[in-house]
């Protein structure tokens, strides 16, 4: 059987960063496996600007951003295989690869970084009421048709969900001559970044309806109309609030979910992010298997994905070199007002600062973020505004961590 020291599954931003980092730390026997024809992942289809502000202090398009990493992979001579998909995996890190050029084969890895990205929730997952017609499509798929293949999936479009991809598609479709009638969001607030609402909707006079969702889709062959209804606090449709809109397309931007089927095969524990549960090295609960990027938790800014990829690559390198310290475990839990925290576990003997990444449950103003351990305050920070669509990062220095025992939790407190 073929063997490799570090196998990176997925050659998107997270996977490339992990491989580059591990190589820089002296790991030479690496293989990146990517199922698409090219490295780069989802960024290949994100032709808009807005990438790299933190990483390069420049505003790049998706393909420009990824090209910088592809060239590092090439320069560092890190082996990669494209049009090759990992289709199975065991806890012993024996991985089955199905490759266009090389057929199906197994390879045994000493360490693995899972960087398989995410997928979009679609019409089935949100159980849209009404007919089963064509013309209902997820935002990312519509983006791929348009930006990669050059086809418009609709001319009169309603967008459901105000996630970033939906917002970006509203602008992109408008520029290509489609009429975007409105964006409808079931929550009382948008799930997109504020800059996207300003630049993609407001600049083009596209209305955003909040607390409103699709109560029915109507169409025999192709979509003909949708009915939008207001919802109450329990997300139930309010009769009498129906708006009938004629359209040929409904674009769904209703959420991204970590794509971790491979980890499911090996019963790898997951967290409330729907990705794997990890420690501060981005190591899952299975030793030597690491995870980073959108398959760990869904990110809105690629620069942070790159960063997380490096963290996983660093962890894998230390693990392979046997420099990995495993002390007593400190469990990290999200409490009041916080939906998730990454990582979910810290090694007590950790010798580095730890960054907690988390999201809030709903938009809040003027709150204190409280970090506690066994009822004792570890840190307290004032936060003027926090919204669910923006991931928050807070660093806890290793000195502060020294005072922490067994458990640590994060919560919000109103002032």
């Amino acid at each position, binding site marked *: 059987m073929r063997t490799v020291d570090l196998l990176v599954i997925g050659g998107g931003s997270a996977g490339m960063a992990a491989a580059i980092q591990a190589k820089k730390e002296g790991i030479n026997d690496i293989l990146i496996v990517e*199922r698409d024809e090219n490295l780069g992942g989802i960024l290949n289809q994100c032709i808009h600007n807005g990438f790299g502000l933190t990483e390069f202090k420049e505003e790049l398009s998706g393909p420009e951003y990824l090209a910088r990493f592809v060239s590092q992979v090439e320069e560092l001579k890190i082996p990669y295989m494209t*049009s090759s*998909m990992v*289709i*199975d995996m065991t806890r012993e890190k024996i991985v*089955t690869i*199905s*490759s*266009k*050029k*090389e*057929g*199906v*084969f197994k390879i045994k890895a000493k360490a693995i970084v899972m960087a398989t990205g995410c*997928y*979009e929730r*679609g*019409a*089935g*997952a949100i*159980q849209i*009421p*009404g*007919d*089963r*017609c*064509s*013309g209902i*499509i*997820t935002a*990312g*798929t519509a983006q*791929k*048709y*348009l930006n*990669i*293949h*050059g*086809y*418009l*999936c*609709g*001319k009169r479009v309603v967008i459901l969900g105000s996630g970033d991809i939906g917002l970006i598609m509203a602008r992109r479709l408008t520029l*290509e001559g489609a009429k975007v009638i409105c964006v409808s969001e079931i929550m009382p607030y948008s799930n997109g970044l504020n800059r996207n609402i300003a630049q993609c909707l407001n600049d083009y006079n596209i209305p955003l309806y909040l607390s409103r969702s699709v109560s*029915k889709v109507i169409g*025999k*062959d*192709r979509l003909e109309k949708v009915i939008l209804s207001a919802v109450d606090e329990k997300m139930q449709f309010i009769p009498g609030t129906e708006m009938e809109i004629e359209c*040929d*397309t409904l674009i769904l931007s209703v959420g991204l979910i970590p*794509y971790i*089927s491979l980890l*499911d095969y090996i019963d790898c524990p997951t967290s409330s992010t729907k990705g794997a549960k990890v420690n501060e090295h981005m190591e899952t609960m299975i030793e030597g298997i690491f995870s980073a990027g959108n398959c760990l938790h869904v990110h809105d800014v690629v620069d942070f994905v790159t960063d997380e990829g490096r963290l996983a690559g660093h962890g894998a390198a230390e693990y392979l070199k046997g420099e990995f310290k495993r002390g007593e475990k400190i469990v990290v839990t999200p409490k009041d007002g916080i939906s998730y925290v990454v990582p979910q576990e810290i090694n007590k003997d950790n010798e580095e600062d730890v960054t907690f990444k988390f999201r809030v449950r709903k938009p809040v103003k003027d709150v204190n973020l409280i970090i506690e351990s066994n009822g004792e305050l570890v840190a307290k920070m004032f936060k003027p505004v926090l919204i669910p669509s923006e991931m928050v990062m807070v660093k806890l220095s290793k000195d502060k961590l020294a005072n922490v025992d067994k458990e640590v939790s994060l919560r919000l407190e109103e002032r």
Partner: protein
Amino acid sequence: MERFDVLIIGAGVTGAMIARNLAKYDVKVALLDKENDVGNLTSNANSAIIHSGYDPLPGTNKAKFNVLGNKMFDEICEDLDVNFYRVGSLTVALYDEQLPLLKELAERSKQNGVEVKLLSAEEVKKMEPNINPNVKGALFAPTAGIVDVFNFVVHAVENAVDNGVKLFLNEEVTSIVKEGEYYKVKTQKEEFYSKVVINAAGCYADKIASMVEPIDWKITPRKGEYFVLDHYKEGLVNHVIFPLPSEKGKGILVTMTTSGNYLVGPSSELTDEKDDYRTDPPTLKNVRAQASEMVPSIPFNQVIRVFAGNRPTCTRHDFVIEYSKKDKNFINVGGIESPGFVSSPAIGEYVVEQLVKPILSMKEKANYNPKVRKYHRLYNEMREDNYKFSNEHLNYSEIICNCEKVTLGEILDVLSRSNPPHSVKALKRRTRAGFGKCQGGFCQPRVVLILAKYYGVSPLEINYDGEFSPILLEKIKGGR
């Protein structure tokens, strides 16, 4: 103008099995359907259970054909290369007052000639660890099974076509008149002439039958709504789990499918529209509540799709399988509601041997082949011998659908067959590309391009389902 001996209206499972049985004989057969693919309506949206036959009232057509049909599935599925597993069914009583009903069902099974066993609560819990712990007992029917309904119909038609049957899709029958020895069957596009006409039009069978004479039966579709769950960990249920049946049907069941998904449903409400496949939240909520009563731990967060199917429920409460009153050369096979799928092989045989043979002289063909060309799948329970095939045919290691691990080789294979897919949905039905957790989010663009290339048309012409259901509407300037 080509003239046929037998023309079948409807390429659902009933029409498909009639066609396949006719294909053994030296007669000219046409199989017509108004849809863009075979098996696109009721045969595409049901529970996919090969019922044992414990439930239909003794002496009915339903009882007779169900029991006969069930026994025929092993051989047919072998010949047609279709997944079929006899997993057995459990009809569970959750309350003490239901126990006498279980006994009654056991008695009915005996009369129908179906092997069953009454189980104690403890026995049920051992077989189904996730069942409601208050379960009082169950009726176990070991011969019940699950089948891949999509490929059952697709491969049956393919096999019929390989043996000489002519398939016509997108042909909606609008009128039928007898002209001398022949029936003239008109569609929205053209005219067909045939000596014998078989009406297997599912929910529309009453409409078709009324084209030749007044009838005393009527079909009112009864809609069933379902949840499909992703490939969840094995063992949520190990058998088909039914509640006790009522006059509305067999009730809401929980089962695994042949592809390792789970199916929860169906509801049962009458609908006036024959083509109403809408799903609605209150009905689904009710399905969820009832199913959860039997199996409390169903992970509804794993739902990847909801759908609805229409049972062709007939005022006679039984299958209508008979000559028309006026003329033996017109045969009605209508009201084929559940257990219609399991009954189909027996119905197909009966219609051909008992109804067609007496009115048409037919000889067996010497070169009839009951088997379809072998289908190869990369991802068939991860068997090593599949890898060997993939390594010899590299198309079979190029993955197109990530979730279901469908390869380019499989897609090109189904395209090259005699009953090929013309739409994204038809391709999905055959290969499972787009059937997984992302529901085509990743693979649909690839599938559209493969279809366009294969048929030599623009991607704008590729439909999701019917002839007027395009996915893409315009090519942008500067687009490739």
